[in-house]
């Protein structure tokens, strides 16, 4: 496995395969993502989408990996569980490992941006699920990543909180313009947020859709509804007029 300097594209994968104990999970995936694009990875459970994301994040070192990939130097991961350390206040959590002189001031600004200005000194255990995930988002974006890897970050939230988080993520990503790879089960989430949707099946990219719809997107737009049906069908859900 070698790392190239990222040149024209932010993320480049060349024939990337990855397996665990002889079982292939990713099967020769090649992919290029230009800077500043928002890509959603859809797929059924076990399709390899989380494995792909974790490979790009530099995790699972014990996996058998072949092929090449390159990612920017500054990568940040947004996990499904917020992974806030319970023994640190919210602000200490989001500045953990941050090496810049104005960390405190920048952290307070970022907390204000995600609507947690008054929770800077709170213990994580006192936050609701949505607040924890907002703190986690603040921790990721405070690092001004060139690449944001999000692994079903809203999967554990209730439907209303999830809608608010979509709006918040979109707004913050518009401001910083990182490349984003979002792993999700949620077709609507993918359609609302991304410029491009990849459908993974058995460790390969089965479909690649460019999404040209203007923002803000609405689920009742005809093109949205058509894409939604197509994507649901390719995920194995047979629907008519859903």
């Amino acid at each position: 496995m070698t790392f190239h300097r990222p040149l024209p594209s932010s993320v480049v994968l060349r024939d990337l395969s990855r397996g665990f104990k002889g079982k292939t999970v990713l099967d020769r995936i090649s992919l290029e993502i230009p800077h500043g694009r928002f890509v959603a990875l859809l797929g059924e459970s076990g399709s390899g989408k989380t494995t792909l994301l974790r490979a790009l994040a530099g995790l699972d070192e014990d996996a058998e990996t072949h092929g090449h990939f390159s990612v920017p130097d500054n990568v940040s991961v947004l996990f499904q569980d917020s992974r806030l350390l319970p023994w640190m206040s919210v602000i200490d959590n989001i500045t953990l490992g941050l090496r810049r002189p104005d960390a405190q001031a920048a952290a307070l600004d970022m907390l204000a941006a995600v609507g947690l200005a008054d929770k800077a000194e709170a213990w994580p255990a006192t936050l609701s699920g949505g607040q924890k995930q907002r703190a986690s988002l603040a921790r990721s974006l405070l690092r001004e990543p060139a690449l944001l890897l999000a692994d079903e970050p809203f999967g554990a939230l209730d439907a209303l909180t999830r809608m608010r988080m979509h709006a918040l993520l979109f707004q913050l990503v518009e401001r910083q313009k990182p490349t984003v790879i979002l792993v999700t089960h949620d077709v609507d989430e993918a359609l609302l947020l991304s410029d491009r949707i990849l459908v993974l099946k058995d460790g390969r990219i089965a479909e690649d859709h460019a999404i040209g719809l203007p923002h803000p997107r609405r689920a009742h737009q005809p093109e949205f509804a058509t894409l939604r049906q197509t994507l649901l069908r390719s995920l194995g859900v047979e629907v008519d007029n859903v």
Partner: protein
Amino acid sequence: MTDILSARYIHAAAQAERREPFVVPAPTRATRLTPARLPAGLRLLGPIVVIAIWEAASRLGLISPSTLTAPSTALVTGYQMLADGSLLPHLLASAFRAYTGLFLGVVVGVALALASGLTRSGEALIDGLIQIKRAIPTLALIPLVIIWLGIGEAMKIFLIFTAVLVPVYINTHAALRGIDIGHIELARTLGLTRSEFIRKVALPGALPGFFVSLRLAVALCWTALVVLELINTQTGIGYLMNRARDWGQTDIIVVGILIYAALGLVSDAVVRLIEARVLSYRRSLGS
């Protein structure tokens, strides 16, 4: 937002109740799967019952004072010994032994747990030794330690130290090893250095396990002392009790037992107090 919703729901429920006071049906008898939480202080019921029966049996002459003194007599004896100054030197001598051993055991136990929990060579060298030590009862070491260190204070403190060392090591080491894999991944993706990881993730994560071990240790240091103070000494609570046995003074024996019980409870309460302070971030979890 969920808070707003639930607040609104409660508000609506409260209104409904105001209009129709009997609208809420009486709860049907649900099967309780776990016992209800005990009100504070009710835990003392058992000890109080036992002491009351004991006292009554003594007064009625069912228990001879030469077999077991009445609790009230023991309290009076204890108070007299405290007043005439004959108790305090023994108490201090015992406390010195117990807490010196405790201190050394905790410091060395934690140091070994860190070395073994955070480095591979440390684990290879230390863990096996402690596991072997764990299998050997402390009291079985007494003859050997007497040959090494004599029958004085050093022997007693050393044996308390080794007794305390084991649970401190085992629990702290297990806590360090059992660190949440999610936190390790987080530390990697945040680019923490090894020293940052140890200071900010591994050690705070192991603190709850350390406090469990500390509570075991404060009880254990007094337990070991009882036996050790039977060996060549003129001071200590254990010595007082042993001498009282020779002279048939069951009241002094009971005083000794009460002192051990009180010290055990107080030590545990102090550790729990410190634990609650240090781990205050957990209070909001409802514990």
